[in-house]
């Protein structure tokens, strides 16, 4: 289709506008915004699609803004073999006026005009392509829906295969097939709900049929079961009857058995009694025989005992004699021994006496020495205790005496002294006390100070001496004190002289020697014994001697020496030992003789006792036998035994008969059979009860369910299943056919599309290389014919990832390429209308795009609506129409 011109009146903001378009190549309609550029494209669609009677929103939107007239459009166009002018007004005074100029002039108005127009368009115009080739301002840039265009498809098909075209007819058919397919499938390709439901319904019915059939079979099975049960019950009753009969029989047998058992018990008892009686009789016969035997044997025993007793008598007399002889010998030996012992004792006493005499003398000597020593010792020690003048002290006294002498000399030298010489006996008193002086005696006394002496009652002399030097006096005093002390220490009288002291010392030395001698004597005498012991020894010996002598006289007749006494004693000892031996031998002999005698005696006593017993036994046995015979004679016993034996044989026979009779009945099996039969009767009865119950149950079930019409129900269900299954099968068959057809059609269309996408892609790339250079290429989706990606300088970018400008350029080029392909075939196709595009494209690129526009539009119609004509300056020979703000024509 090509548009020659379009004329608008009272259309939106346009009062009157008419534009003529170039049939081939680019027409640029340029004008500022709001002058109606977009309106021109809209009006073209409106006049072709909407009848004048339409009051749709697209029509109402076309109302003029400046008056209330109806919008009016007139278009002149060529499509297929037709050239026509169509004129429409809507809303107010609606009108349609179609004038077909070629190939045959015709003129139609009103509704018919619109319908004729639609018919012509349907015949010649690919309306999908017509719409796809519009590129509207303000609409989101997107790729044209070229994939659904039959014209393009047909063109591409032809380009690709050169064969028969798939045009409008095929597309319509495809749509019909799709509609048919959608009767059975969802758009997603799944069976529609009705089919699924029908299938489920059939399955459910199948299940119901199965269930109904099962019910029926169950019922039939139940009937069979009833028959079997009834048969079994009949059998059971017969069995039970037979069982009862057998049971009665077996019970009778059992009773007989019991009788025979009793008979057997009795036979057993009789047999036992007979057996006991026979045993008893036999025992008594045996006892009698034993009695007789006992009498005989006791007689024999008594005789034997008598013989034995007689036999031992002489031996016992000899033994008694032997004892007497031995006893005499022993008496003699014992007397001899007593005598020998007496003599030995005497000899021993004499020997002791001799020895004690010697001992007493020895002990007495030692005792005397010891006593003498001890007296000497006591004397010496007494002296020593009184005389302490040992050599040391003597030396000290000697020294002190010398000191006094010296000091006296010194003093005397220095002091006066008074010499008193007695001419008669006189007592001198004073000074150093009273002193009696015998004539010729004198004493001198130093005089110090004053010395008063009274001479008897004759005179008192007072002598006053000079005063000696004090130190001298003191020295003398000291020496005298020293001397006095030493004397006191030595135990000597204070007036002792040195000579006396010397004498005392001599005496002391001698005492010490005496002591030593006495000590030695004592020691030698005592040796290891004490004095008392010595005294005791002596006393002991003295006592023995005194005792002996008292017994034997003061001068006994005893051997003179100890040696002799000892010899005598030893002889006595030997004699006593011999006597002892003799006594022992005699004793032994006596003991032996006694033992022999005792043994013989005891044996004799035993035999006598045995003989007594034997005689007693013999008597008792005889008595017993006699008594027994008095009670029952031996012959009676024998005949009783005979009777009992015969009776036992009879009893044993009857017992055997009873046993045989019982065994003949086979009691074990009778009982087993009886028990078994009873158990069987119980079991059968129980089973019969169960069967009767079950039969009643089954019968009830059958009679209730048998009239429910299960067969009718099954038949109805089966009929329904049959119908629905057939319907389903028909549907499925149709669905399978529709599916096969649709799938094959789609597959083949896709295959065709894949084949013909090549020329489309080549056309887009030819235009693209003008704009972007030789490295430009694109991938095209074969089903939608949309550009999937662009490759430039070897770099591939998906369409959606491209910049807005690049996407817009590709959209425009795809439309141009499509228009070129379609127009190339038969002059059909549709105009490309580009409304205010390429606003994002930079100036440098615009020139190249212009070249592409020109190349693409060589044999097709391109209309560009723009407010910026400079964008399309690059299109070399475009026809430019300037729109001005509208003014009434």
């Amino acid at each position, binding site marked *: 289709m090509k548009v020659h011109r379009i004329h608008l009146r009272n259309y939106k903001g346009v009062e009157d506008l008419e534009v003529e378009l170039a049939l081939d190549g680019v027409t640029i309609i340029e004008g500022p915004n709001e002058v109606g550029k977009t309106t021109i494209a809209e009006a073209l669609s409106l006049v072709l699609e909407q009848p004048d009677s339409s009051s749709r929103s697209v029509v109402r939107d076309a109302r003029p803004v400046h008056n209330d007239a109806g919008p009016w459009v007139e278009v002149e166009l060529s499509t297929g073999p037709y050239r026509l002018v169509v004129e429409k007004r809507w809303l107010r005074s609606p009108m349609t006026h179609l004038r077909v100029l070629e190939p045959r002039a015709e003129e139609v108005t009103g509704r018919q005009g619109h319908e004729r127009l639609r018919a012509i368009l349907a015949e010649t115009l690919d309306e999908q392509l017509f719409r796809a080739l519009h590129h509207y301002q303000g609409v989101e840039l997107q790729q044209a829906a070229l994939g659904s265009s039959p014209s393009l498809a047909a063109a591409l098909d032809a380009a690709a295969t050169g064969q028969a075209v798939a045009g409008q007819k*095929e597309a319509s058919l495809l749509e019909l097939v799709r509609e048919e397919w959608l009767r059975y499938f969802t758009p997603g390709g799944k069976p529609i709900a009705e089919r699924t439901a029908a299938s489920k319904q059939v399955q459910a019915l199948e299940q119901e049929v199965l269930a109904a059939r099962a019910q029926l079979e169950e*019922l039939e099975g139940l009937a069979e079961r009833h028959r079997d049960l009834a048969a079994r019950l009949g059998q059971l009753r017969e069995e039970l009857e037979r069982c009862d009969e057998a049971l009665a029989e077996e019970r009778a047998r059992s009773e007989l058995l019991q009788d025979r058992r009793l008979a057997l018990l009795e036979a057993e008892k009789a047999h036992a009694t007979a057996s006991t009686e026979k045993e008893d009789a036999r025992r008594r016969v045996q006892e009698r025989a034993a009695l007789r035997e006992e009498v005989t044997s006791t007689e024999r025993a008594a005789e034997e005992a008598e013989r034995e007793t007689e036999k031992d008598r002489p031996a016992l007399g000899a033994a008694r004699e032997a004892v007497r002889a031995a006893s005499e010998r022993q008496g003699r030996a014992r007397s001899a021994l007593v005598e020998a012992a007496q003599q030995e004792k005497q000899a021993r006493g004499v020997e002791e006496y001799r020895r004690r005499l010697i001992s007493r003398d020895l002990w007495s000597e030692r005792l005397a020495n010891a006593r003498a020593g001890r007296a000497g010792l006591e004397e010496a020690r007494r002296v020593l205790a009184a005389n302490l003048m040992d050599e040391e002290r003597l030396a000290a006294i000697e020294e002190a005496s010398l000191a006094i002498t010296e000091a006296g000399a010194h003093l005397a030298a220095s002091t006066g002294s008074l010499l008193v010489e007695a001419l008669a006996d006189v007592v001198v008193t004073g000074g150093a006390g009273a002193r009696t002086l015998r004539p010729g005696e004198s004493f001198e006394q130093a005089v110090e100070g004053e010395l008063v002496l009274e001479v008897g009652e004759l005179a008192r002399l007072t002598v006053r001496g000079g005063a000696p030097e004090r130190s001298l006096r003191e020295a003398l005093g000291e020496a005298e004190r020293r001397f006095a002390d030493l004397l006191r220490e030595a135990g000597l009288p204070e007036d002792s002289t040195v000579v006396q002291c010397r004498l005392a010392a001599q005496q002391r030395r001698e005492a010490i020697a005496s002591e030593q001698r006495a000590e030695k004597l004592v020691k030698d005498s005592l040796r290891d014994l004490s004095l008392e012991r010595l005294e005791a020894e002596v006393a002991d010996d003295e006592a023995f001697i005194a005792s002996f002598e008292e017994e034997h006289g003061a001068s006994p007749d005893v051997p003179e020496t100890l040696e002799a006494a000892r010899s005598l004693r030893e002889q006595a000892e030997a004699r006593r030992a011999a006597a002892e031996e003799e006594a022992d031998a005699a004793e032994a002999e006596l003991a032996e003789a006694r033992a022999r005698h005792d043994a013989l005696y005891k044996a004799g006593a035993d035999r006598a006792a045995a003989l007594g017993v034997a005689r007693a036994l013999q008597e008792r046995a005889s008595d017993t036998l006699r008594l027994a015979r008095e009670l029952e004679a031996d012959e009676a016993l024998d005949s009783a035994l005979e009777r009992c034996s015969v009776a036992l044989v009879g009893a044993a026979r009857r017992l055997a008969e009873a046993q045989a009779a019982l065994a003949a009945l086979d009691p074990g099996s009778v009982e087993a059979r009886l028990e078994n039969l009873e158990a069987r009767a119980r079991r059968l009865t129980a089973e019969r009860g169960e069967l009767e119950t079950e039969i009643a149950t089954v019968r009830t079930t059958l009679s209730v*369910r*048998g*009239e429910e019409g299960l067969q009718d129900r099954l038949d109805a269900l*089966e009929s329904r299943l049959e119908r629905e299954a057939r319907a389903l099968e028909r549907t499925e068959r*149709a669905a399978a*056919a529709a599916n*096969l*057809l649709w799938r094959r059609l789609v597959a083949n269309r896709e295959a065709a599309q894949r084949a013909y996408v090549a020329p489309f892609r080549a056309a887009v790339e030819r235009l693209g290389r003008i704009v972007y250079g030789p490295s430009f290429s694109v991938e095209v989706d074969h089903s939608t014919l949309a550009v999937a990606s662009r490759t430039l300088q070897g770099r591939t970018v998906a369409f959606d990832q491209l910049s807005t400008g690049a996407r817009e350029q590709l959209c425009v080029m795809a439309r141009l390429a499509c228009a070129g392909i379609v127009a190339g075939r038969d002059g059909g196709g549709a105009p490309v209308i580009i409304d205010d595009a390429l606003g994002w494209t930079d100036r440098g690129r615009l020139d190249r795009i212009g070249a592409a526009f020109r190349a693409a539009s060589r044999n097709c119609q391109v209309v560009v609506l723009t407010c910026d004509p400079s964008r399309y300056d690059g299109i070399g020979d475009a026809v430019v129409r300037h729109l001005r703000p509208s003014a009434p024509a």
Partner: protein
Amino acid sequence: MVRFIHSADWQIGMSRHFLSPEAQSRYSEARLEAIRRIAELAARESCDFAVVAGDVFESNQLDRQVVARALDALAAFEVPVFLLPGNHDPLLSAGSLWDSQSFLARCPANVVVLRDDRPLAVPGCPAEVVGALWRTKRPVEDLVARALSALEPARTVRVLVGHGSIDEQSPDPGNPALINLRSAEQAIADGRVHYVALGDRHSVTEVGSTGRIWYSGTPLVTDYDEVEPNRALLVSLSPEGCAVERLDVGDWAFRRQRFELSGLDDVEEVGRWLEELPDKRRCVVKASFVGTVSLAARLRLDKVLDEHRDLLAALEVSDRRTDLAVLPSDEEIGDLGLGGFVAATLEELKDLAGAQDEGAATAQDALALLFRLAGGGS
């Protein structure tokens, strides 16, 4: 000389799945009508009694309404009717229809169920009837032989009523329940019975050479293979002679027909055959088609069948789809004027439809669909 009706296999309560509910209802009614017709004929022919040799009922488990209606039909008889339990309706020890309340409560006085093997005297007539009845669905002996073995020679005319296959005709020789023909003929020769009335076979059939052993067939056709259904037998019997006459009682037809198709003419012939069928509302047809036809012929056939489906009691078409191949002719394809991918698809489907596999039928259907949608044949 006694006269009686010999019928069998009434199959009351039988359903045929291929019948629509409406047709099924009419078919069931026709069965009861046949019984009434027999009663009417019995009266018209002055019969002394009637025997029904087994399968009076289709099943022991029937709805009480069905039983009630059957008994209502039986009430039309003016003579005694002896009913024999058969393999479909055996006299079980429990759960039999015969013992059900719905049967016992409504059973007309002249209807006698043969419940054991003993001869029953027919009231008002010098004749006896002996039933070899079924007590289980699976007997393990020849029931007829068993009933015969217990009989003494008859003093009056005696009819034995039995049910089952005769051993000489059975395809299942191992079946222990088969009726031994020789023993039956021997009983007739011995004078123990004078006529053996059999049921089970739905076609009228004379058995053996005595002329006294017959299957009466069913009074209303039940299947396509039945040779002579829709009959009852009128028997005139004495020890000396026996005459058997066929009586028409049923008025339904089951037709199985095979058509060979090669073109539109043959399809039209199918239409004519169907058109000429008498009494279509009581006619059941099972048609099968063999051959190869064009898409147009196939569409025409479907149309013809659809036209008659509504008229007939039932029209079954054999499911064996491979028997009839549908292939578009080149002319048909050319007429469609289809190009591009559609033409390619058409060629593909043609190839598929011509193949000898399971997909061929679907491909043929797809071709037919394409043909229809593309406006072919119009």
